[in-house]
């Protein structure tokens, strides 16, 4: 039965308008303002502006600190995405059994995701406090490692990687779990009958079938690793020691809000915008072939 539906020329626009307005207010306007400010140097109260052209951008790429931060952020992102997804997929595979209390596990697993990054930072900073931290004392007593993220740059970097991965773990596991549960059991059964071993089943059946989930998670985790580390860094390392954990977002914060270099920080936010656009574009292009979206 077909209901009568009077199509209007304006209805699609009306329905689209909320998101368009939101995108406009929260994305287009601030981004264009950033673009505008990136051509100026301002005094601290914003009462005087000097037009400096592309100087903020040229400075940025001649600033070894920025280049280091850029490389560090990419490295950090790769580590968080690769390790984070591998570990979560592993846990999801284990959890994807017909377990009792499955719903409870699932709820518990997603808890870390509900924490704000700053709280995550607090928890980890407390556990690994070089003086009073439970975890750092355990490391010291059992393995003889004196773990100190305050006066060891390598430790600091490892520390924020682990904390960042941990926070996203629950989110990833939940998505992988639902992906795994959507895999039709008859395909797996057929493969068992055909004599495929566990590894082969994983590689040739599960992995391709959950590829849309994986693809989605790769992008989400990349964005997460790139943009959402501020709270963690601010609470735990403040980018230090030296600039050892100074990721792009934190540098932007320092330059924009501590040093009050609005123009310089705006230039950085424009670069960040271009980076995320590029990353997303590349990922979509390269995944068109390898992601299987089913029928």
């Amino acid at each position, binding site marked *: 039965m077909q209901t009568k539906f009077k199509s209007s020329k304006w209805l699609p626009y009306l329905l689209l308008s909320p998101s368009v307005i939101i995108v406009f207010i929260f994305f287009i306007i601030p981004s264009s303002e950033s673009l505008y400010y990136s051509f100026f*140097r301002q005094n601290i109260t*914003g009462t005087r502006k000097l037009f400096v052209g592309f100087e903020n951008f040229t400075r940025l790429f001649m600033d070894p600190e920025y280049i280091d931060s850029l490389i560090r952020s990419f490295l950090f992102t790769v580590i968080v995405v690769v390790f984070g997804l591998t570990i979560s997929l592993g846990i999801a595979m284990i959890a994807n059994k017909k377990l009792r209390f499955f719903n409870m596990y699932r709820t518990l697993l997603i808890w870390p995701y509900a924490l704000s990054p700053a709280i995550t930072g607090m928890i980890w900073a407390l556990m690994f406090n070089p003086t009073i931290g439970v975890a750092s004392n355990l490391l010291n007593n059992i393995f003889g490692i004196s773990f100190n993220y*305050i006066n060891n740059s390598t430790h600091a970097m490892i520390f924020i990687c682990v904390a960042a991965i941990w926070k996203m773990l629950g989110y990833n596991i939940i998505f992988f779990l639902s992906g795994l549960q959507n895999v039709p059991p008859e395909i797996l059964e057929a493969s068992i009958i055909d004599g495929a071993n566990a590894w082969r089943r994983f590689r040739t059946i599960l992995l391709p079938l959950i590829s849309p989930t994986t693809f989605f998670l790769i992008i989400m985790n990349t964005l997460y690793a790139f*943009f959402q580390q501020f709270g963690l860094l601010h609470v735990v390392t403040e980018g230090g020691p030296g*600039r050892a954990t100074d990721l792009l977002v934190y540098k932007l914060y320092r330059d924009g809000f501590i040093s*009050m270099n*609005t123009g310089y920080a705006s230039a950085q936010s424009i670069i960040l915008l271009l980076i995320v656009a590029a990353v997303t574009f590349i990922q979509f292009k390269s995944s068109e072939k390898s992601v299987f979206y089913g029928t």
Partner: protein
Amino acid sequence: MRKKVFTVLLILATSVMLFSTGQKEEEGSYSLPDDVKSGGTVTFWHAMSGSKTAIVDGYAEEFMSLHPEIKVEAVYSGSYAETVTKGLAAIKAGKPPVLLMSYEVGTQTMLDSGAIIPIYTLNKGEIDFNDVTAPIANYYSVNGKLNSMPFNSSTAMLYYNKDMFRAAGLDPDVPPKTFEEVYEYSKKIMDAGHARGGISFGWPAWIFEQMHAYHNKFYANNDNGRNGNRASEVLFNGELGVKILTEWQKWAKAGVLSYGGRTYKANDPFIAGEFAMLVQSTSSLAGILKSADFEVGTAFLPKMPGYEKGNSVIGGASIWLLKGHSDEVNAAAWEFLQYLFEEKNAVAWHKATGYFPVNKRAYGKLTDEGWFNKEPRFRTAFDQILGGSNSKAASGALLGNFVEIRDIMGAAIEDVVVNMKDPKTILDAAKVKCDRVLSDYISTAE
């Protein structure tokens, strides 16, 4: 296909959200409103954390009970750097608090902000500025005038663990006076297994500044930015600066310097007995005495031989009156500042924290009641600062955007004592950055 479109949309929406939260706040130019933005309330943004918040709140309450017609709202606004940047952002947004606490490095920035009312213009003789403790008045005066009201003033001194000194066979009443002795004593204590390290610093970049003043060397040109011209160049990569960082690196390599992070992070491991000595602000004195379960000694900062004697620099913060409020509110704020300056409040503040009493008469009163004899550790910093020079080099630097310079130096010092990079190279690179901060600052200053 629909799923794909959905994924794309989801990702787009999420990235929009990510961007909007990461987006920087942008405000139009600052206009000075004449109306009362605070609704008649004296808002006071400060950075006094922990037990100090309660003391400041107590002052506000007592003041209000004495002046029922005035409402004071004291708001803890985070660390010093956060309070200053929040204040500046509020100024930009046209909603400034009435009173803003700014730490010493914000002084030049606040002066140039165009958003302040110098407090000397409000003073109709209610406060005799000659009553302000001399070194504090020297630090905060620009061209001989007080632009902000000193409130919590401190300096750096050496804290040490007397029990550890005793256990290692050192005389607990003879603290190290030179860099060499610091190293030697630390080694003794560490070799005897009493501590993991010898010494640590709070506010390392500040201690580096202190060391320049203490050895009577300029940190920046134009007499530390105090000869009427703004400082345009930093001088810390000279022979003294390199020598200090080379020493610190030597200590760090030997495990003598147990780097503990910026601001007050090194206090906890000192209290826990991880190292024997700590160079920290006097404002930590009351807190450390309360928490330490060992006998705490206090002493002058260690010096290197071969340099003139300078002085330790005043740190801490002062309170600024911001434009944008009615005359009544300004008058009420000035009333509150007078109250804070009162002898009895200055005395109580000093006793509760370790900050200097900013009022000379409070110092006299403390002496008269025998406080310093009873609590000689509260006198150490006074003796240090009153026994030092009043030269311009010893008064500390006034720098534009000092907040950023502090941060650059904080990272530079970490590069030397944690990442073990070459001191001279690091200082030269830091100078380039800091000089650019100064030239950028001058290019936009009015």
